[in-house]
């Protein structure tokens, strides 16, 4: 039952992704991507990573894509035609890109078929059944403390960078800066 659910979700996700990258209107792209990102929560839940599933939705669908949408609408309000890209596909380049992409997919997925093809990973032992606790235990006990701090620093730096980059000489555009954080 779960497998069916998963495969259905997978098909939908890939379909949405493909649809997203062939859209002309970037807003549609963003929305479809949002669907994909949010949808990825399903596989996460199916392999007992509820926390990540939630975070996936919160961060990607709830924050990142929102940022994209905001930017798109903002720029769109300034000049809509600049936003829309006429898909003048350069045949050679596109062909090349397609070949590479397909090759990549084949190469990446190939091993999955014959290495993990049949074997079923057993589900977590009881220790990990309570995902959140296990996760936080792993994240905050010892080994990952420094990386966590690093990540936080990176975020801080990004914040500062954005504010510096976006604030215009007349500091009227307050919301953009605040939003971006």
């Amino acid at each position: 039952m779960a497998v069916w659910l998963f495969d259905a979700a997978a098909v939908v996700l890939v379909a949405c992704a493909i649809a997203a990258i062939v859209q002309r209107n970037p807003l549609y792209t963003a929305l479809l991507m949002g669907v994909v990102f949010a949808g990825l929560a399903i596989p996460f839940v199916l392999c007992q990573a509820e926390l990540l599933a939630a975070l996936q939705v919160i961060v990607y669908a709830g924050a990142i894509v929102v940022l994209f949408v905001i930017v798109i609408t903002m720029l769109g309000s300034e000049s809509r035609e600049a936003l829309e890209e006429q898909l003048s596909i350069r045949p050679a380049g596109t062909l090349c890109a397609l070949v590479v992409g397909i090759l990549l997919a084949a190469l990446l997925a190939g091993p999955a078929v014959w290495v993990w093809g049949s074997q079923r990973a057993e589900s977590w032992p009881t220790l990990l059944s309570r995902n959140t606790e296990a996760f936080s235990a792993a994240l905050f006990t010892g080994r990952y403390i420094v990386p966590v701090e690093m990540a936080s620093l990176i975020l801080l730096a990004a914040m500062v960078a954005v504010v510096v980059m976006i604030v215009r000489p007349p500091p009227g555009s307050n919301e953009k800066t605040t939003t971006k954080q």
Partner: protein
Amino acid sequence: MLVQILILAIKIVCVLLFVMGMVPVLIYIERKLIADFQQRLGPHRVGPWGVLQPIADGLKLFLKEDIMPANANKLVYVLAPIASMAPAIMMFAVIPFGEPVDVLGHRVGLWLADLNIGLLYVLALSSLGVYGIILGGWSSNSKYPLLGSMRSAAQMVSYELPLAVTLLGPLLLAGTLSMVGLVEWQMSNHWLVLMQPVAFVLFMLCAVAETNRAPFDLPEAESELVAGFHTEYSGFKFAMFFMAEYAAIVSICAVAVTVFLGGWSGPVLPPIMWFLIKLFALIFIFMWLRATFPRLRYDHFMQLAWLRLLPLALASVFLTALVLCLPVPESPALVAAANAGVIAAVLLFELLMRARRRLVQEKG
């Protein structure tokens, strides 16, 4: 198995009915309340004491012509109200209305699902709420809606943070993300509002902002941009926005009840009654605020989020964690004291700032 599914289906229907039913009730209550606040009569023509007024309004909206702006982005324009409706309703999936009851031999919890990440689920949905508004504003391809949607996007993303942060304190104390778990913890210990007063107040503030309610209703500030993001909307779609807003209010208040006010816990009365009482109490506060406060200016509003609420929330969480780290067994008094400390500190800071500003002015 079959029974389970049946029960589940029944539950879903009940919850949907509850949410849908809440909306007209709330509309009626609000109009009456505002009227009382303003010493008017409020609706009193349709039905006894105007009880049927909301029904009439609803019918009116459904029967009105559904206008579609000429060069609107059709798909998104239709999508937006749904997008804003869905999260508000989905949020009820994890709200526990009462403690489990026995139905024909099956023990049934009065909630749809008890995710062990219930709280995060709530946050996730509330972070999705912004889509409807942005899309609505953008798709109707008109000046004021766009501005309104930009504003509300900024506003919701900004208030998302303190909202999430204020939930951390209770989380630290209860040690669970599951809504039911939270309620049970509070039943065995104390209501979290006692131990996290600051968090509670902040949460309510952010909730008001998240639901675009007065005094934080800048996205639809009539005086500045007609009706904000749903200016162009009319008829049924408008009704959906409208319902979405009220559904959001109910859901956020339900979350507040569950997290801070001990959910269904309470003496004498049946649990579900307690839940409803608390829920309405909070909703009443919402309306009270609306009736009392004038709308904030936009920049003040953003400053409030980033320079006041967020630091406050962080401080409260920090102190809570500190108290938990202490070797003493955490007592509500201690935690509450810590939070009180936050308030005191902030007030002191504010006073100092005031004094400084006055000094500066005197200097010239």
